[in-house]
């Protein structure tokens, strides 16, 4: 019981922090960016943490959705909501196609296949006319929620993004704790056994993949709306690597881990990029190495394991 009430305290503190942060003078655009990447990492965690599928190309869904939303909203004058939904739909479709090919293999093969196929998406974005090539899309307007709530102001936009983030976070929690989520974890622990119990493992994996891709797409669309641009960086290998790092660093397979990981990585990049230039990539690489060598469970995972050990329970 003590641990449960501990979790409740953490959530209440985070909630208060999230609601009051822009009023306390924290730059709202930074907070929104953080929430976006946290949503991206949570979506990614659904795959890596609960199904143990390491997708090395999640930027494909994040970036393509950012492009589609940005293009529809800025060039075709679509509304914010429909533009976002269209972006998510494209990410979902991409996830379905790439996932259907990738779930045929496991482990490192899965990682390499998702990486290679995301590179196809990258080149399509580079060459297709509507993405603006090397320049990307600039000046994407935020618009409004059905013409009722104008999202032009940073603070309004922040609460809009926060609301969506909470929805996604709750949705992922719900999925993980549903019977479907339990099957995913069974696949993570022992795939051949899940097969022998009669589960159509490939279908479960594909559904998890499509869900994760769609939510990653939502994060990408929001990113395009918040910052007003969508560029090749959003679909690049570097972004795919970043979301892996966020999830791993915070703790894959935990609810709060991706949130913490995204917070650390986004803050670090924001803080370091003007100060150290290309050393950022050395630091990120160093964190990767440290994570893999020293704390594979991530921050939150290590803390949970320590609590579990103290209570005399074997860590999960």
């Amino acid at each position, binding site marked *: 019981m003590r641990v449960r009430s501990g979790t409740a305290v953490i959530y209440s503190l985070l909630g208060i922090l999230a609601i009051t942060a822009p009023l306390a003078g924290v730059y709202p655009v930074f907070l929104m960016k953080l929430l976006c990447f946290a949503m991206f990492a949570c979506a990614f965690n659904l795959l890596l943490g609960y199904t143990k599928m*390491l997708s*090395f190309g999640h930027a494909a869904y994040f970036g393509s959705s950012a492009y589609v939303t940005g293009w529809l909203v800025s060039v075709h004058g679509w509304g914010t909501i429909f533009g976002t939904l269209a972006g998510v739909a494209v990410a979902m479709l991409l996830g379905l196609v790439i996932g259907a*090919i990738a779930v*045929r*293999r496991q*482990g*490192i*093969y899965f*990682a*390499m*296949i998702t*990486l*290679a*196929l995301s*590179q*196809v998406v990258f*080149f*399509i974005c*580079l*060459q297709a006319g509507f993405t603006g090539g090397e320049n990307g899309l600039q000046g994407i307007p935020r618009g409004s929620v059905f013409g009722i709530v104008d999202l032009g102001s940073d603070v309004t936009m922040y609460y809009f993004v926060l609301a969506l983030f909470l929805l996604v976070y709750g949705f992922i929690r719900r999925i993980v704790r549903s019977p479907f989520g339990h099957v995913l974890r069974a696949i993570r622990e022992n795939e051949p056994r899940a097969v022998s119990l009669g589960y159509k493992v490939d279908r479960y994996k594909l559904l998890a993949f499509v869900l994760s891709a769609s939510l990653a797409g939502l994060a990408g669309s929001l990113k395009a709306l918040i910052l007003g641009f969508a560029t090749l960086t959003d679909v690049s*290998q570097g972004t795919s*690597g970043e979301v*892996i790092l966020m999830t*791993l660093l915070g703790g894959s397979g935990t609810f709060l881990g991706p949130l913490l990981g995204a917070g650390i990585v986004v803050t670090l990049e924001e803080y370091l990029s003007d100060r150290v*230039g*290309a*050393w*950022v*990539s*050395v*630091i*990120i*690489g*160093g*964190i*990767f*190495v440290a*994570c*893999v*060598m020293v704390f*594979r469970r991530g921050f939150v995972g290590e803390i949970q394991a320590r609590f579990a050990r103290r209570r005399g329970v074997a860590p999960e």
Partner: protein
Amino acid sequence: MLGIPLPAILGQLTLGLVNGSFYALLSLGLAVIFGLLGIVNFAHGAFYMLGAFAAYIGLQAFGVNYWFALLLAPAAVGLIGVVIERLFLRRLYSQDPLYGLLLTFGVALIAEGIMRNQFGSSGKSYPVPELLRGVLHLGFMVLPIYRAWVVLASLSVCGVTWFLIERTRLGATLRAATENARLVQAFGINVPLLVTLTYGAGVALAALAGVLAAPVVQVSPLMGSSLVIVVFAVVVIGGMGSIIGAILSGVGLGLIEGLTKVIYPEASNIVVFVIMALVLIWRPAGLFGKE
């Protein structure tokens, strides 16, 4: 054929062969490492880049010529590989292979970041060695002698490596260690040392490809970062860990890529990945894979 002049097709096929020899050399190194260590070496592109830079730095700072660079650069970079295996990879063999992929990804970021800090992002040019300047007149195209040399050198190294692994006693020991490391160890063979040297050798192959590439491409810190993804696709097509599969699919895909450049240039960047998807649907283990 399709209204495209034959010389254009032959010309692109020849250039495809040059690219294909690089793919073969790089995927060979990956296959050797994967075969014994079970690790997908994401840093392979970074080691290729380091090989090219080692040649460049050697020439600029110490006046080491191309021919010595062909030996020294792979040796130096291979040594870095040995250190990385001893310090990090060694501790990961008992873990999920995904951690090896993630670790080498981190190593690649570090290597690329350091080189970008030292040399900037722009490309440096490396002169073609005097002996290999000039061109060959093939009738359908004019081929720089250096490119012909690249094909010859890469394919010879591939051939020698294949022979070493598949036809010699050393190779038999290696393959036995892949099957059952403990048993081979019981026969008095120092398996951990064998593993370290194999990783070093695979890394040295990547660096050798880098030295060979230095005079044809611009030497830059990011020259290997997208190449490594293409090579991953090549290895998946060939079948992970298959030596002959890596060599043949490397050359084959170079040729197909060249052909795509004349038929439908827009697709030349993605054709390898599309073929990978098709192969996976048809044969999930790859063309030469065993499973």
